[in-house]
């Protein structure tokens, strides 16, 4: 209790000193960072791979001598343990656990809860996975950064890929999980689609409850309606169930499925996902990333990860890599810019502004509103037989700069103002597979 009190006092003094002059800090024993991820609950399909990846990446950094000689020490908080446990543990880690930087969170809800808390606690927080575009559109933050894209470019890329590959469809239906992500992503998607293709007709909207074990009724209705395109931004077990049931009942032969998060389910879906359906990855995340797959570090990590987990990497792994890359880059930049042994908090925050870093995907840049600008990879499913599951062909990577809502604008309004011309104007790199 005593030394807790001491550290608290010290922390308080530093905090008090900060606004005046930001001097360098002493090199710590180790750089303590905390990361929140779902280790339990349905979303652990993302949390657990991300944790495994983070552990590998940190090991690699430390094996290479850490950051300017300081080893990194990461500990995790389970987002599945509920909001109270999460917030109080987050606070504890920062106030007395000595965490210098926090990586939070997967759930958009948790991001919106923790972002203000991070400001209160004055701890740099890298939002490493959550998708809501609202955070930086509704508030300004000093301590909060996002090291990947958000729902807007992700959905926009999906619309663009759909319009580029299947321009003349007429009808669309949606089956999304009934929670904020499912609702918001549909809002963005349909607003953008209507803007670029006004004649499209929405024939059905389903929002089955999160974690629904059975989509039979929805599928029956969809078969009765025969929409050209069926969108589902679902993920994890819900997506697997939906796709399995749909493909079993032949719905996937009559409609084109658009699945912006399917990259994270490819391995599990195995042969159930037929050719010709549109797949997204919430960024340029793909274990066969056309530009990176021959890169040595990339290949090395992929093998490391597969050896550790027995699975191929999915997008949360890439997101984790970006957050940690950003962390490393920011410290090194701060150290270089200020030519110090170890940066103060303000120096670190300064370094994060406009920082460019590269994880497993293409380089990402943090804008002045702290939103990461990340390119978006989309593809079409194909069963090549090379893997026991579907991979992607006709891959397109869109330029994040063109897809991310301009600073200070509201996503819905911005995408609503786009037009058909946008489809042709966007910069896109296309790859066979």
């Amino acid at each position, binding site marked *: 209790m005593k030394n807790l009190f001491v550290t608290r006092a010290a922390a308080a003094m530093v905090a008090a000193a900060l606004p005046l002059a930001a001097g360098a800090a002493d090199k710590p024993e180790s750089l303590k960072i905390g990361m929140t991820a779902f280790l339990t609950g349905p979303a652990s*399909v993302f949390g657990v791979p991300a944790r495994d990846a983070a552990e590998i990446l940190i090991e690699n950094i430390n094996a290479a001598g850490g950051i300017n000689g300081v080893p990194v020490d990461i500990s995790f908080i389970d987002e599945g343990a509920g909001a109270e446990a999460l917030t109080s543990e987050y606070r504890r880690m920062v106030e007395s656990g000595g965490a210098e930087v926090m990586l939070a969170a997967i759930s958009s809800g948790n991001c919106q809860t923790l972002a203000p808390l991070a400001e209160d606690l004055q701890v740099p927080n890298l939002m490493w996975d959550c998708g809501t575009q609202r955070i930086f559109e509704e508030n300004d933050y000093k301590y909060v950064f996002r090291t990947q894209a958000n729902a807007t470019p992700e959905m926009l890329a999906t619309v663009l890929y759909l319009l580029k590959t299947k321009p003349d469809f007429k009808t669309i239906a949606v089956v999304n999980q009934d929670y904020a992500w499912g609702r918001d992503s549909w809002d963005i998607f349909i607003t953008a689609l209507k803007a670029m293709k006004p004649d499209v007709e929405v024939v059905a909207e389903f929002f089955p409850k999160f974690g629904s074990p059975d989509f039979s009724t929805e599928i029956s209705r969809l078969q009765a309606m025969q929409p050209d395109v069926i969108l589902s931004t679902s993920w994890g077990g819900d997506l697997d169930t939906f796709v399995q049931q749909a493909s079993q009942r032949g719905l996937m032969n009559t409609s084109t499925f658009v699945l912006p998060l399917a990259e994270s389910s490819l391995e599990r879906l195995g042969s159930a996902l037929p050719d010709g359906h549109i797949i997204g990855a919430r960024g340029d995340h793909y274990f066969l990333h056309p530009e990176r797959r021959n890169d040595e570090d990339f290949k090395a990590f992929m093998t490391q990860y597969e050896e550790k987990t027995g699975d191929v990497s999915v997008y949360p792994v890439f997101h984790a890599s970006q957050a940690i890359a950003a962390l490393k880059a920011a410290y090194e930049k701060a150290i270089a810019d200020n030519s110090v042994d170890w940066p103060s908090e303000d120096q670190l925050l300064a370094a994060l502004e406009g920082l460019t870093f590269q994880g497993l995907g293409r380089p990402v840049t943090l804008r002045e509103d702290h939103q990461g600008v990340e390119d978006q990879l989309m593809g079409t499913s194909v069963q090549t037989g090379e893997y026991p599951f579907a991979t992607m062909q006709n891959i397109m990577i869109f330029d994040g700069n063109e897809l991310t809502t301009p600073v200070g604008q509201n996503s819905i309004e911005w995408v609503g103002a786009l037009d058909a011309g946008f489809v042709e104007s966007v910069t896109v790199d296309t790859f066979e597979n």
Partner: protein
Amino acid sequence: MNFSIFLLALFDGVAYAALVFIVALGLTLIFGVMRILNVAHGSLYAIGAYTTVSLVGYFLALGFAPAFAFPLMIVSAILVGIVIGAPLEYFLLRRIYQKSEVLQLLVTFAVFMILEDVQRLVWGTQPYFNSSALQVLGNVTVFGVTYTAYQLILLPLIAVVLLLGMRFFLRHTIIGKLITATTEDREAAQSIGIDADRVFLFTFVIGAVLAGLGGALASPTTSILPGMGADMIVLSFAVVATAGLGQIEGAALTALMIGLGRSFAVYLYPEISVLVPYLIMVLVLLVRPEGLFGSPAARKI
């Protein structure tokens, strides 16, 4: 909505109701006999499903025919009953029959929490899926809508067989009569020499097997993942309470009401489909406080 749509909704509702009924059947049997509302029933359901996918995956990898999945479902269900159900009753529940309803319920809730983590430790967090059993039976097409024979025909069939089988078992077999006797008056039953402990053990194992069977039968149609038990238990609670505690026929009827209510909601007003089970429960209990088939307990004074 036109007639074909009506029929489609009907089919979906029945298929869904069948599965719900099978799970609720075990729950209501256990409650009827032992007066314990077993929260862990949901976990048994989930474990039944996990066991099935694991076994099916294993044996199919060995080159067995997909049809082999069906016997494996039964094996899994029985495994759940014997490996988990029996010890649960023998070592734990047996100690708490004298305690209050609340405590009994909490004990099973504690077991539920423990089993949730056991599942995660054994099977991890990644969803499982194995629909071989589903594919074996192929599809049926009605009004241009394709159904899996498994869901449209097999599940309802099994549900009906179980309903009739359970009725017959309870009314026309020795063990069944022993169970019914013990249910009606435990002291009396013991006084005429029925070993209530064994009856309870047997009943609980049967109930657990039914939970496991529900999971096994669900496994080809859905992703097996952590937390799947929690949703099922709340639903089957609603069924059991609406039906009237311990009412097997009532459970069947209620499951049907909930299944149909849900599927028609999806056709007419999808947004309320989640609410349907609870609305039905409240409405039924509003009219019949002891549930559809329940009878009021008169107090002698």
